[in-house]
């Protein structure tokens, strides 16, 4: 309490933050609360809490839609894409960071320039390309696009990180006669775990949330991802708001829970993508 002015100022700041917090959270709160209401209840008293917690909407989503399938597809596609991004970019980053070879800076430049390309704009040739390879409307086609999108910044981060690792470890392992593969796999990569986590989160969130590429590349209902499935779902239940809010809540749930547990990693992963 240095002076009254300070207290008032801090009070004003807390007020501003409180208002902002309400604006951020209240809509999500209404979304969750509405998912327990009947349609009539939402229309007649949208602001009140549900009078009794009805799980009818939940049952409807569970039994009458392909929701679970969409969820499983999203999990599978995100996991596969992130795994391949980690694998490919670590290998490439390792080559650039740990070996000196003639084209290394050129190769790095090539990857870096990939960061500036908005792949959305190349969707037409990308589509034709995948079509030629027979990969339109398949998991693999979508995964490869995500991998291509994720590699540039992942290579950048991995190269930067792997460069900071001390040479001595590698040298002494080499003296002991370890093979290059062994040095990479059991000595260097375990040290790179923090960077791998950043790369994983940075790629997993946008892939999990992506709508554009599945919209163009996936047509079979059985292959649709969650955001895309959500549009199908909204088309089928347009007038049943209770079910709609339930669908939105369920779609938001997995990543929200994960975020609450790992908020620090999420925030640094996603904002570091910006500060590359």
């Amino acid at each position: 309490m240095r002076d009254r002015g300070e207290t008032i100022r801090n009070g004003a700041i807390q007020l501003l933050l409180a208002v902002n917090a309400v604006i951020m959270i209240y809509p999500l709160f209404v979304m969750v609360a509405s998912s327990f209401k009947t349609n009539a209840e939402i229309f007649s008293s949208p602001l009140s809490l549900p009078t009794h917690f009805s799980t009818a909407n939940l049952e409807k989503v569970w039994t009458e839609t392909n929701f679970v399938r969409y969820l499983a597809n999203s999990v599978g596609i995100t996991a596969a894409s992130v795994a391949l991004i980690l694998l490919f970019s670590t290998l490439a980053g390792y080559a650039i960071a740990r070996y000196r070879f003639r084209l290394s800076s050129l190769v790095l430049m090539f990857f870096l320039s990939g960061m500036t390309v908005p792949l959305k704009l190349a969707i037409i040739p990308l589509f034709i390309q995948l079509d030629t390879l027979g990969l339109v409307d398949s998991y693999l086609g979508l995964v490869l696009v995500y991998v291509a999108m994720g590699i540039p910044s992942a290579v950048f981060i991995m190269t930067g990180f792997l460069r900071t690792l001390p040479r001595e470890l590698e040298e002494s392992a080499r003296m002991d006669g370890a093979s290059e593969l062994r040095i990479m796999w059991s000595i260097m990569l375990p040290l790179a775990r923090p960077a791998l986590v950043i790369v994983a989160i940075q790629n997993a969130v946008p892939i999990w949330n992506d709508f554009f590429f599945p919209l163009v590349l996936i047509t079979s209902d059985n292959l649709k991802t969650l955001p895309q499935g959500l549009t199908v779902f909204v088309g089928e239940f347009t007038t049943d708001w209770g079910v709609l809010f339930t669908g939105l809540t369920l779609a938001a749930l997995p990543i929200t829970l994960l975020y609450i547990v790992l908020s620090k990693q999420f925030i640094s992963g996603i904002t570091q993508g910006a500060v590359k």
Partner: protein
Amino acid sequence: MAEGWRHSERAFPWRRSLWIAALLTPALLVMVLFVLWPLLSAFRFAFYEFNGLRPSGFIGLENFRQVLFEKPYSDWTWNAFKHNVIAFLALMLFENGTAFLIAFALLKALPGHRIHQVIVFLPVVLSAVIVGFLWKLFLHPLFGLVNQLLGLVGIGAIPWLGNENTALGSILFANIWHWLGFPTLVLLAGMQRISKDVLEAARLDGAGDYALMTKIVWPLIAPSVTIVTILTFIGSFNWFEIPYVMAGLTGSPGGSTDVLGLYFYRTAFGSTTTGIQDFGQGSALAVLMFVFVAGVTAIALRYLRRREIEQ
């Protein structure tokens, strides 16, 4: 055995090269197949007429002429472009402006600031599809949350997404709600990098909060401002998901929310009752958007980086 490797390296230099090549190949292959080649093709396709999904004939600059100068296409292009520009300016002012204020408030590290960071960033991790549908329901003229709340203070049913004058603003609002946490935390990180000594010295010199904000913090977070500006610019010109979900493919009502992303998608892939798909015109639009965004970004980066150095 260390000699062993060196020995074998000397004896089999191809072994080392092969190992490096093996490490690089998967990533390079994916990049060439799914980034480089499509990108080059995009430029090529813009000069072709299309029949369905296959190019049928070289037509020079015809596609470009149509989307830029021939009515009604040119009207649609410029109309969409205008909305992208509005979106960029509005996001700079309202999203990044608010983000700056909140970041500054969080810099004080008053009780609860950590929780606030988690809260403000929560919508960022949600899909734009979820955010778009949520706000579409909230903005419904008769049953939506927003009008119900306004009804409490006696304001009548406003067709937020149905009126040309409010639709774009409403969609921008949803977008700001979605993304606010991102610039907030990027700017906050920039502010936290300013050394405590500098801030303390300024305080001792009697600088108030306002002077501190404008004279010290703002200039010193120039690198973060650069990043936020560039990303907002790129984001505004690639804007697609939220307008698609909230205003549909045609940018309703009456094209008042049409943006280049929607117009590009509609041109390339057609829409239910109206369009006939045209990959040639679509490619021309994509090339123009790419050249514009890349060009402006390069120039802006140069200018903004200079500002950083001068500071």
